[in-house]
């Protein structure tokens, strides 16, 4: 098992079949949590700054990103 795979735990999930990499979620995240990865898809670069506010879901015009869960410590 890859050593760090368990640390990639994220609650914001991207549907890559819908995402066109426009970056709106990255631009409008109020806590600057998201970045685009090497393939142009958003990921939680600063996961623990997330306020689970759902702005990323709301600002996505393609319904490609969603808050799958509230953060683990809260769930």
């Amino acid at each position: 098992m890859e050593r760090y795979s368990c640390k990639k735990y994220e609650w914001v999930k991207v549907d890559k079949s819908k995402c066109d990499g426009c970056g709106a979620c990255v631009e409008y995240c109020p806590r600057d949590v998201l970045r685009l990865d090497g393939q142009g898809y958003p990921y939680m670069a600063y996961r623990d700054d997330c306020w689970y506010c759902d702005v990323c879901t709301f600002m996505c015009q393609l319904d490609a990103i969603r808050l799958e869960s509230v953060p683990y410590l809260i769930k």
Partner: protein
Amino acid sequence: MGFKQIDADVVVVGGGSAGTFAAIKAKNTNPQARVVVLDKGPIETSGAIGRGMDALNVVSVPGYGTPEDVVEALTKVSEGILDQECAYTLGADIYDRIKDLEEYTGREPGDLFPVDDNGNYKCNFLHPTNKALYLAMDGEEIKRALAREVRKLGCIVLDRTPAVRLFTTDGKVSGVFGFNIRTGDQYLINTPAVILTSGCVGKFGMPRDGYLSGIYEFPGNTGEGYALAYHAGAELINLECFQTNLLMKDFNGPSCGYVVIPRGGCGVNALGERYWSHGYWSGDMFLAVWREFAEGRGPIYLKLDHLPEETIKGLEKILWGTERTVRGQFHKQRDENYRRWDSVEQGLEEITLCSGHSMSGILVNKDTETTVPGLFAAGDCASVPHQYLPGAFVFGAIAGRVAAEYAAKNKAPGLDVDAYNLWKEVRAPLDLPEPGIPVELAEIKIRTRISQYLTPPKSDPLMQKMLWWVDRMRKEDLPQIKVCDFHDLIKATEVQSIIDCAEMAARASLFRTESRWGLSHYRLAYPKRDPNWDGKYVVVKKNMSTGEMEVSAKPVPEYKWDYPARLEYEYPEIKLDIGKGFVHPPNDSHDPWISGKVAEEGLDIPKRMSARQEG
């Protein structure tokens, strides 16, 4: 990464609800004015209502209330520690701001806000008064509409560029310095007028679930407004009145009592009994909650199951569709349902300093002027008790107008700043050799100490210990904070702001020798309200000569209206006689066995066993 110098007429620090209104009204007042807005995030979604808002918690509108009614309510819930003129202004101006909101969003009366059969905005009861001063709102797009207006008017918007320094020259405001948290671009702005609208100290106490961002307030609000004002020499007040949030347990968002109670919901304890007469966030209600836990009747719940099905469905739409939309998902993941009486567990969570929901902040008058010329403040960082979102709109608008008028009459004072060395100082955590202290650990450390040493009921020795931690963290921890990028660099400033606010809160609390505002300033060494403290602020201010924090008392402005200045509650008589325990015979403090070992071996611990296999 570059350095830019800007000349401005008005600088707005924080583009939230108050800040966007300030920028709009500054431009409306003087369209030629160069208005700059700085924000930690993008102004479309930043601040306390980035995802929308579901109510204006205090208004006066025709048919329901008058500005005097707002004065009456706020005099009562602040227990008389307020400037009644500010409360009156809040009531007098909110109707015009409601009209502004309908204009900016392009929505009609009856859509954004409910109207009754007479065509008046329809209000509900919430406050501990007989007046209906609560107006519901379906405001998911409010912030986008305000941001659009700001940009349309030609304000210079610096997104993701928080201000980290505020400058004065000869006691007057002269500029700010900020940097972009992605690119590191720096901005030195020379201006005669700065409006602080950077929100509350949301990141203050630590939530009990342990998640740093799992807090009631927007986690970008970390007290920079308080700290910038303090270091500029402004007076701050009511920092001893803590916001002791009653929240949806673990979710730590609003429950949301203010949406549910005006539709017939109520708070009950673990036995299903109503534990207090109202659900308004005044200190008496928090004290009642604390009592339920202290006497073994916690947890407490927000009860909805007795409401009609159509009301419950309506509440689900509002509660899960605006402000903190993940609420619905949170409930579903816990198999909770509003149709069961014990579905919304509540708890007293992290303490916060805030004006909107409480009373703490920068001292301002009804024109949003602070005690520093050229410095204005509005919203959650400016002390207008219990002003909520309406206060941000009303006083944000006033600040914009007044600051623009001030700027038209006053040139920006000269700004003598060594930008190179200033930036070197700000970015020191980036340049520090590894490993240093990760900024998250420093934040956990100060916030856990705040929770342990400042959470009410307040203990004098614990608050003194907090001051010891403040001093120690400033000397030992702050210089060792290490970050790896600009995104995290702002957190080093945030930790400094939190530490400054912790000191202000502890010193103010130790100065007010009484208890007041229920749990919010329940001080065990002085467990009763003292009439000698009626009508008196505790003021915190930096001595600009010595750099020391000074605390003093001063009277609130003379009352214009003679309304009751208290709520009907009493502090409990705490009797803690727990008996004598057991007293065993005394031991000899001289123990030749251990002193002999010290004499023989010194303080080193001998290695008696090896983990390696013998042979």
